[in-house]
């Protein structure tokens, strides 16, 4: 289909602004741009149809099953979007005086209270705009904590090899050296290797539990104790909180600081890649280091306070506020019991689907899983030369968004499946049937999987050509 620039016609446009009602002031010629500004010229009807066509060439949770592991693609309730669009939230300038933004501060303070209750933390900042942004923030709290104690030799962050790639990247950005520790054969932390890795240079450990293979690490109390005993702090990557909220709290597992992904666990839409929200919660010992600013109850109302030894700011203002509004509406809807119910059913759905698939596909790790599980297609790859990628691309022809591919790195030919709690049993049954039929197709006609997809808007794109000669913009 055409690009906006290709549909553009000289002289077309929308009528938006009235004529200027004051005398026109022009800036000096020397300040002005010389290069022509080439934006599309389109009537509103053409813009509307363009984006409707683009929408048909995309796939969201509203279109069908989206079991993208680690991303928690649960249904995004509509009330939340409507509430975020209220003029009383969307029309508020971030630098209004405090007495005119009491509602906004109440949103932040209430969301903080709810989420601290769920996670077992004492304080929370909403400034980070996404999970990775939260990781950077949380690590800066850890760094500031050690420095405030004059404990300057703690330069290393321990990260299991099964961790999300953001963990080591964030640690490096925060100025730490990364120590990778291998996982054991269950995909969990190898305690002996961890003991060997900690020491007086340990600043902390980054961990997600349930871990990236969908298993709750039973030794979690021992793990966090090993790190604490060595003088380090424990960082909880909240990417997988959807499995355990309302059942067990990171704060009770021994974690000192966490980030959440409101766009995963708390149902706010992903928007094709953002905006997300990555609030960071911490125990009291880190609260003085939180970023500027922090909403706090003050008398009858709320005020912004500046934490005494703040690490600074990771962005302007207070975070992706309207995303927090959505998450708060969701929390109000679910309440305490609903949060627990969501987690339990996320785990139930994952185990149900795993049970349905386990005789066809090889599950990478045995036993009851949490909210997601990992399949390994190593055998199919070896025997039929059909890869995880081929299976994923074939699923596209069946209207299913494929599971996460090739993650975690410790499983070969991995497909990571996360159905979430908002799918019905019928949806899971139908999906299991499709997964099974694709497997049979791989045995019968492997070539057809290499050729997939055939019904999507495009076939497989040439990624090598894209990276060798990058064309990142339309050439007029």
């Amino acid at each position, binding site marked *: 289909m055409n*690009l*906006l620039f290709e549909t553009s016609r000289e002289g077309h*446009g*929308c009528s*938006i602004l009235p004529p*200027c009602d004051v005398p026109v002031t022009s800036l000096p010629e020397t*300040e002005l741009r010389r*290069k*022509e*500004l*080439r934006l599309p*010229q389109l009537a*509103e009807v053409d*813009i509307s149809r*363009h984006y409707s066509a683009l*929408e048909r*060439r995309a796939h969201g949770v*509203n279109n069908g099953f989206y079991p993208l592991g680690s991303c928690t*693609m649960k249904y995004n309730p509509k*009330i939340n979007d409507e509430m975020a669009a209220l003029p*009383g939230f969307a029309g*508020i*300038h*971030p630098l209004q005086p405090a007495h005119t933004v009491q509602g906004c501060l109440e949103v932040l303070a209430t969301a903080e209270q709810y989420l601290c209750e769920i996670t077992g933390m004492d304080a929370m900042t909403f400034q980070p705009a996404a999970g990775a942004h939260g*990781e950077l923030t949380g690590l*800066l709290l850890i760094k500031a904590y050690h420095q405030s104690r004059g404990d300057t030799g703690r330069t290393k962050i321990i990260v299991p090899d099964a961790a999300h*790639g953001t963990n080591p990247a964030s640690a490096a*950005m925060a100025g730490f050296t*990364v120590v990778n520790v291998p996982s054991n054969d269950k995909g969990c932390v190898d305690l002996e290797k961890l003991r060997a890795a900690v020491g007086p240079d340990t600043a902390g450990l980054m961990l997600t539990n349930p871990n990236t293979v969908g298993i*709750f690490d039973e030794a979690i109390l021992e793990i966090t104790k090993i790190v604490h005993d060595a003088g380090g702090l424990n960082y909880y990557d909240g990417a997988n909180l959807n499995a355990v909220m*309302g059942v067990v709290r990171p704060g*009770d597992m021994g974690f000192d600081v966490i980030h959440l992904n409101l766009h995963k666990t708390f149902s706010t839409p*992903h928007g*094709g*890649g953002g*905006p997300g929200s990555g609030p960071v919660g911490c125990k009291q010992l880190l609260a003085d280091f939180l*970023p500027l600013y922090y909403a706090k109850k003050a008398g009858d109302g709320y005020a912004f306070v500046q934490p005494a030894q703040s*690490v600074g700011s990771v*962005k302007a*203002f207070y975070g992706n506020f309207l995303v927090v509004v959505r998450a708060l509406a969701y929390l*109000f*809807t*679910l*309440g305490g019991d609903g*949060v627990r119910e969501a987690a339990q059913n996320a785990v*139930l759905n994952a185990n149900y689907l795993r*049970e349905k698939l386990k005789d066809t596909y090889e599950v990478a790790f045995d036993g009851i899983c949490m909210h997601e599980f990992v399949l390994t297609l190593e055998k199919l790859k070896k025997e039929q030369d059909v890869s995880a990628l081929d299976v994923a691309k074939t699923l*596209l022809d069946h209207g299913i968004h*494929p599971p996460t591919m090739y993650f975690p790195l410790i499983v070969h030919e991995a497909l990571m499946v996360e159905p979430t709690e*908002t*799918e019905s*049993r019928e949806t899971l049954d139908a999906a299991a049937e499709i997964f099974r039929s694709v497997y049979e197709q791989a045995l019968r006609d492997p070539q057809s999987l290499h050729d997939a997809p055939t019904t999507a808007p*495009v076939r497989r*794109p040439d990624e090598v050509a*894209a*990276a060798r000669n*990058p*064309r*990142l*913009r339309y050439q007029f």
Partner: protein
Amino acid sequence: MGSYVPTTKEERRQMLDFIGLASMDDLYAAVPASMKIDHVNLPDGKSELEVRGMMEEIAGKNRVFPTIFRGAGAYDHYIPSIVKSVVSKETFLTAYTPYQAEISQGILQSIFEFQTMICELTGMDAANASVYDGASAAAEAAAMCRERRRTKTLVSAAAHPMVIRTVQTYCEASGTEVVLVPVKDGKTDSEALVSLLDDSCACFYLQQPNYYGLIEDAAALGELVHQKGAKYMMGINPIAAALLKTPAECGADVAVGEGQPLGMPLSFGGPYLGFMACTQAMMRRLPGRIVGETADTDGERAFVLTLQAREQHIRREKASSNICSNQALCAMTASVYLAAMGARGLREAASQCCSKAHYAAAALKRAGFPLRYQGDFFHEFVTDSPVDAETVLKKLEAYGILGGLPIEGGILWCVTEKNTRAQIDRLAELLKEVSGK
């Protein structure tokens, strides 16, 4: 209690049976009993109708100002209806990052169009799919410019304070130094810049127009920076970009900015949009997601995420940035806004901002609030305040007007195309009453 779980209790029991478990608790056998909680200490869940009431009540505790003369990093522009309509489309809202290119062409193409528009606005060669906001974009730009022997970042003290603080936070995190280049008469002091530039400087960041609203001599400053072998970063206002010399024309290596003025509501500070663009030479250092054009196996045009090999999910601790989620829907918002305005509409909006700001500055001067600085400005300006700024703002507030931001003993005003002549005249009258002029 509200719930989005579709299965009935009976269905759940049958599903547990199928797995071979007796109860929901059995799903959590791996969790040590000592740690488990049996309930969450929060109010009960509510129906949709009740939640709507609760949220509306909270929203009602905020004051929505019908007239706004405040900017300082968040700008009140008119948002065409088509913008909200397009970005509310369910599929755009609920899609994840376009990893599966074949079924994500709609999202990918919209980003490709966004990248093209950002290149057009800035004059630069390449743009990414967005970062969190203008402040973090500046911080990421500084990281792009750092080299082994050149690590120091210079930042104009006339940049937005929150941008400065964000750059400082990121740079301190990575153990590199930030030095502020002082301000002289409301603009970056070029002599001070020269004296601070040395072989250890990686880059210099200039905001255009600056925090005080003034238009800096960006091309001249850029030349000074390049003479010392450092990289030049500019943070621009995207509406002003319709009129002002492009970063490329000023010699910038990296151009970033806050994209909120392009169709995003004020939203108490977010979600906003960080945009980043750079020269061809620096293209492979651009962090975050980038969409490229290629062909599919049938030779048809297709779009993909590209240049991802340096990203965190592959390069882990060696990655140049940790960013993954960005502000994709906000990038689409900006695209639709720019398509609806067109070049003509954007220039008109920019011209009206500038004209009305100058009209207001003259009116405010007559009302006893003279301009603090000489020099050309776009849509923001600082005035002195003959009486305490808080008194002034209280008075305006009583009339439904959000006045300028009190800074450094004066007031930073912003006027956009939304402000009418009548509103500006009313503002001047009220100020006259306060100043007694």
